[in-house]
């Protein structure tokens, strides 16, 4: 169910602006990897490069290679929609489809992939909502608008929608930054549960969160505004937060910079 992500020398551009420079890292299956760093250092850009959402923006492109279990994600023959199905994404702000009910939101991805049978959709909706720890809260109102839920519930709905298509990897771009501490805790619990099935990469500004949930942590930074972001250090979370190799990492996690 979960796959390995291997990035080597990935550089991403917006037009002529280089947003990240030569990032290399290997993410093992069924682990949680946290990407931390100051704003504008390219962690989200790197995350969006992994499922080719980066190229949605005009003039955006990447160099280098990104592989999922030895297959090149950026191979010209590869169907980009297949990549995104394989590598799901949860966004910073909860973004359920406003015109759809809770149920329709969860099965939206499946419908896009041509699943029409009602019983299959019903099963998938129930399973995904259960996996997202949301089933008990919404099972009696699946026909209600998804946008009517609270922020934390909406984000779990989006996670349910993402995992309903059974991806191999789940990318999370600051999934808790718009949520209160209780909802954040609910999402973190959920991540531990999902770790058994998916490879998870999460971008977060919250260092306690990174320390709590992740197995490995990557620290991104920039020298100054306008410079491309670099991966400064990538190691076991334990090591990054107790005894980092790089001075910059230590400065950042102790709050001396950034």
């Amino acid at each position, binding site marked *: 169910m979960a796959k390995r992500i291997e990035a080597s020398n990935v550089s991403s551009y917006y037009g002529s602006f280089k947003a990240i420079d030569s990032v290399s890292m290997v993410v093992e299956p069924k682990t949680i990897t946290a990407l931390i760093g100051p704003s504008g250092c390219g962690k989200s850009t790197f995350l969006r490069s992994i499922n080719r959402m980066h190229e949605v923006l005009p003039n955006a492109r990447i160099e280098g290679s990104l592989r999922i279990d030895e297959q090149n994600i950026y191979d010209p023959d590869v169907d980009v929609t297949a990549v995104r199905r394989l590598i799901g994404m949860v*966004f910073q702000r909860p*973004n359920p489809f406003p015109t759809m009910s809770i149920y329709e939101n969860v099965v939206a991805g499946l419908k*896009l992939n041509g699943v029409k049978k009602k019983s299959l959709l019903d099963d998938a909706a129930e399973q995904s909502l259960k996996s997202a720890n949301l089933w008990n809260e919404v099972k009696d109102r699946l026909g209600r608008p998804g946008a009517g839920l609270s922020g934390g519930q909406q984000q779990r709905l989006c996670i349910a929608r993402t995992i309903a298509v059974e991806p191999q990897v789940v990318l999370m771009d600051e999934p808790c930054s718009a949520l209160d501490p209780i909802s954040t805790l609910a999402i973190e619990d959920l991540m531990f549960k999902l770790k058994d099935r998916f490879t998870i990469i999460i971008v977060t500004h919250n260092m306690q969160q990174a320390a709590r949930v992740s197995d490995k942590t990557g620290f991104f930074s920039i020298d100054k505004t306008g410079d491309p972001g670099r991966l400064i250090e990538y190691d076991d979370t334990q090591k990054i937060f107790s005894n980092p190799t790089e001075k910059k990492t230590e400065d950042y996690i102790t709050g001396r910079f950034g």
Partner: protein
Amino acid sequence: MGDNPSRSENATAGDLGVTGRHARGAGTGVSPRSYEEPPFGGGGALPKKTRFGMEAGFKGLSVAAGAMVLVIIVAIAVFLISKAVPAINADTENFLTYKSWFPNDTEPKFGIAVLAFGTVLTSIIALLVAVPIALGIALFLSHYAPKRLATPLGFVIDLLAAVPSVVFGLWGRDVFLEPVRNFSLWLNEYFSWIPIFGGDGPFGRSVLLGSLVLAIMVLPIVTSLSREVFMQTPGMNEEAALALGATKWEMVRTAVLPYGKPGVIAAVMLGLGRALGETIALALTLGVVFNISFNIIENGGNSIAANIANSFGEANETGRGALIASGLVLFAITLVVNMAARAIIYRRREFRDSAA
């Protein structure tokens, strides 16, 4: 600082068991002027609310503007009804069902049936032609065309809306007539087994010509409004669809079209409003025949507004009243259409409101 003692100073004064006024006077060196006009947040008596200021003035203006709409509507309704009722009373035939228009005779005979039918028929055909094309253009402009192309093209579409309807009418009658006549002959030759394309001619100045001209006139309104609503689709919903593995068209179907639906309905209704009320273009292009026929390619067709334009000149007192009565019917049709549209939008309001 001295003139504006902060709240915390008053709070301290309260703690000491002294009233704010005393504390301020004694402690903080306030100038005498501020005793007469207490500054904001300075304790003492609260400032009096202004009795006649900008607030009241503006409120009055907006209430008057709102009331004026009602007054105008009532005035128009009173005028229309007062002119229409005597004419309808003078009608020797049934106003709703009679299929001819002779209100100027000594025994006036006229009925709205043909005109109302023609109005609705031309408008519906115009929308059937215009709406799919308009939505296609709107989607192209909002989601497919590169920005360098979309901006000038959108401008051209808006320019189309600025062409006066009489110009469309003249163009339809003098230029567009030939191709439509040829097209009608072709339709008649191969598809005459479908009743709407039957008949023996003559062809050309038909419902088809009028509807197509109407379609071109309605196109820019529907296009630019739909483009606006499509462009308002939240980017994060489009990204959500793409991240689920949607192709561009699937993304449009999942995120853009459902989100824009109420707006598109409103745009179509505005277009329908224009089509129903269009006068001079139809007066110039329709064949002006008084019969109810679904045949759209034979010379013929008529509409309420076109009939008013064509016959107002030679109408007598009763004739004018009859035409005003027909205008009242047009007004009723438009009202029903608008209410139907609102009902459609209202039905899904729960989803729209929670999205906002």
